[in-house]
């Protein structure tokens, strides 16, 4: 049933929005951002910062846009003289006790207090030389510092812990201008989703120790991505500084993770900056010989030869964080053989975010196990290893192998081809080692546990000669010589996948966009 619509005018723009919507949300649709601090679309609104006061015609006084709902025929002025003066007043009040230590503040450059003051604050302060409120910096938990002096008491952090994490370990203590965000001695801010309070804080009051003084906000390059930490598929942004990943932050997606991501995902980035990467194709000179570096053409020829010459079954041991494109094209490489394709899905404890339906750090710690399944991979890792013992060719697609795995692969009769990122000891067993990119160095897609296919974007350059695994596979498939049909982008690789696998039929990267698309449920599909 369609929502009932009401017509409102906001700063001259006439729009129709669903009944019950708040003015602040309606204004967004009219292209007007109402400045605000305490309001956050994923938290209950207390209307305490009073920054979003707007003029509503016929109302006796300014109304808080965050809790006032639209009404038919309503005329709202966000930028009237009165509303602007009220906001300027709030900014001035917020700044009288603020240390203005922007030069040493991590939030600088992405601070809402800076931004709105820049936009419409007073040029100078009328506060004079009174002492400012002073409270020491407090250690709130494993990764969080509280810089009380910068706090504007918007209470987003308190509400996140109360109403979203449902673990009320933060409070507002004291009252009046002595108030601050408090914590009890015996209960730290160590919730698995606690890091979100840092993102929610509109100023530099709650800081991540991990990111502390690591980079200036304006030096960061931001890329839309998907968290590879588990099967939830939280949308995120990868922040890099000079090609180094320095921070992962949630990217809003109301259908997947709203505005949040867990600390496991947030901290899971150091591997992206590893220095021990495979940077060139490596070929073994003779059955017992050493690896030598080669160019791509030679290496691709060699792989093509192995695949073409194989007589007997093939096995693919893949990582659960390989993209749909890579998994599918590598699988297509050995299509003519009997194939056992498996993905490795590490398991861990589930950690739900209590206040949001269907949002958790999932037990399956891989982003694309479901995508792998859709292109012919199973989660039967042990079965894959068993099959490897009799396979003519075994392809390892960036899988992390433990000691038992490498022992099982030692001395197998078939040829071992590794598409890898890191030069582990065991790659010495391989006939060919091909350098591939991580998800942060390529474009591609993952399918999350709810069959939602989501795109991620390249965030840093690939090291050395590394290429996406789908590129490697498609080049081998095409064979030597110029060939017009080889995909040159992940989008084209995805088109190949969509042709081959009906579940993706009709979809393209452009359709998926950066919000993702849920695949139709397959009849009789099982998980």
């Amino acid at each position, binding site marked *: 049933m369609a929502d009932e619509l009401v017509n409102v005018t906001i700063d001259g723009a006439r729009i129709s929005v669903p009944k019950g919507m708040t003015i602040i949300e309606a204004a967004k649709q009219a292209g007007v951002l109402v400045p605000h601090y305490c309001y956050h679309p994923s938290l209950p609104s207390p209307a305490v910062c*009073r920054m979003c006061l707007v003029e509503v015609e016929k109302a006796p006084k*300014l109304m808080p846009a965050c809790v006032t709902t639209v009404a038919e025929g309503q005329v709202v002025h966000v930028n009237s003289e009165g509303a602007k003066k009220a906001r300027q007043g709030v900014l001035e009040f*917020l700044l009288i006790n603020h240390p203005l230590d922007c030069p040493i503040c991590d939030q600088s450059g992405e601070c809402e207090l800076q931004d709105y003051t820049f936009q419409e604050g007073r040029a100078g302060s009328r506060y*004079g030389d009174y002492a400012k409120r002073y409270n020491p910096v407090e250690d709130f938990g494993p990764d969080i510092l509280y810089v009380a002096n910068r706090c504007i008491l918007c209470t987003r952090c308190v509400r996140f812990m109360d109403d979203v994490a449902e673990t009320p370990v933060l409070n*507002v203590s004291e009252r009046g201008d002595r108030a601050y965000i408090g914590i009890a001695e015996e209960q730290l801010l160590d919730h698995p989703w606690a890091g979100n309070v840092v993102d929610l804080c509109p100023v530099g009051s709650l800081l991540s120790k991990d990111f502390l003084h690591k980079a200036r906000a304006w030096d960061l390059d931001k890329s839309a991505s998907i968290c590879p930490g588990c099967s939830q598929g939280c949308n995120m942004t990868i922040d890099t500084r000079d090609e180094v990943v320095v921070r992962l932050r949630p990217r809003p997606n109301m259908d997947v993770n709203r505005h949040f991501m867990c600390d496991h995902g947030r901290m899971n980035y150091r591997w992206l900056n590893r220095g021990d990467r495979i940077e060139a194709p490596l070929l073994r000179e003779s059955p017992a010989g050493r690896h030598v570096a080669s160019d791509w053409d030679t290496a691709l020829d060699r792989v093509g030869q192995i695949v073409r010459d194989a007589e007997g079954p093939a096995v693919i041991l893949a990582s659960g964080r390989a993209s749909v494109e890579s998994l599918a094209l590598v699988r297509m490489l050995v299509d003519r053989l009997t194939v056992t394709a498996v993905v490795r899905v590490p398991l861990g404890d589930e950690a739900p975010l209590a206040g949001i339906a269907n949002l958790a750090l999932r037990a399956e710690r891989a982003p694309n196990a479901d995508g792998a399944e859709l292109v012919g991979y199973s989660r039967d890792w042990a079965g894959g290893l068993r099959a490897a013992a009799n396979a003519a060719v075994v392809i390892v697609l960036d899988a992390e192998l433990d000691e038992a795995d490498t022992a099982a692969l030692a001395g197998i009769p078939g040829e071992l081809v590794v598409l890898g990122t890191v030069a582990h000891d065991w790659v010495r067993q391989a006939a060919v080692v091909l350098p591939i990119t991580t998800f942060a160095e390529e474009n591609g897609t993952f399918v999350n546990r709810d069959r939602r296919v989501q795109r991620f974007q390249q965030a840093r350059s690939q090291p050395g000669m590394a290429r996406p695994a789908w590129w490697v596979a498609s080049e081998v498939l095409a064979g030597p010589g110029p060939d017009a049909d080889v995909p040159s982008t992940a989008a084209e690789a995805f088109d190949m996948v969509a042709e081959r696998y009906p579940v993706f039929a009709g979809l393209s990267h452009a359709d998926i966009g950066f919000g993702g698309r849920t695949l139709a449920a397959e009849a009789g599909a099982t998980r």
Partner: protein
Amino acid sequence: MGFPYPSDPRETVVLSKYFGDAGARSFDGWTQRGGYEGLKKALTMTPETIIDEVKLSGLRGRGGAGFPTGLKWSFMPKGDGKPHYLVCNADESEPGTFKDREIMRWTPHGLIEGCAIGAYAIGAERCYIYIRGEFTDPWREMTQAVAEAYARGALGADAFGSGQRIDIVLHRGAGAYICGEETALMNSIEGKRGNPRIKPPFPAQAGLFALPTTINNVETLAAVPHIMVRGGEWYKSLCLSNPKSTGTKLISVCGQIQRPGNYEITMGTPMKELIYDMCGGLRPGRTLKAVIPGGSSVPIMNAVEAESCLMDYEGLVAAGSMLGSAGMIVMDDTADMVYQIWRLARFYAHESCAQCTQCREGTAWTTRILERILAGKGTDTDFQLLLDLADNMTGKTICVLSDSCAAPVVSGIQKFRGEFEAYISGSRQPVVAGV
């Protein structure tokens, strides 16, 4: 009566008749003085007829807002199957006001009776009486009286044999002015910080424990039994001026006055009569300088305004102020208006709950500016600054604490600017603010 002073013939004693009469505190003493007749009568009436009678009386909220009581009661949903609550606001904490304290201290059963009638009228089985933590004597009297009322069958599962269940629970505050604000008070009963809530929802829709709730002041509820016994028409006839202001009103008079105390007047009595006749005027040799007529949150009146106004809701609005909680602070010619306004600002800065930015920061900043002026370090630009901050603090927050801080500053500068200027120019000796 002007307790502790004898009653003045110009008063109309209804609620204050037994102030100072310790015999009225017990159940028997109260009954002997005609008490509990109002409740017994009400229990024979339907809730609708009770509400109609209260509407007819013209009774308006005595806590400060002056909202018609009968109308407020009629907002409670009927037949919704949910528990309803009546809350009695006995958090009297508006500086200058001390009338509810006397009602609870001397006539606790009168309040119990009023609460019981109110609870029955709005379909509430339980009434919470929120008594501020500092009121130790009222707490003791009320505790004893409630226990007695249960023991004598006035309260409990079958109030006076009517078959109606009426429970009263006393809840003790712990030191927070803002808990006198109705939604903050409800949060406080729920065991939370006393933060005012945003409205809507209004208490009649979602109040205490998110259930339909009516909240009334002590004096309002204490008047109800008298309306039951003597009729709405009688109450309505107690009016000397505007027909919208009916009944008697307890005025707490304090400050620099000969006989401070609670004076029960008929609505519309001239303030001049109250100050000079009933209260015995100012101290010898002193003249009137200013009056804050409705508790510290309302605009200050100068002597001319005070001496010409009528004491009722409309009369005080016409004079540029408000009846508020009717706590009348009288200041004579010795009063240092800058110092007194600073003291009020400090009060609000101390009591701000910290939610709204304007209030949290504005009350404290205002206090500092006034402090600077008192210390002889003010400048001419401070007037403009104070008035502009006051404007930014008025009509912009969840509750009116911020407005209440701004009101005396604005009216003080308007009416007593010369005193500020004397500090700024150095013609008045600086004082060090604070004790």
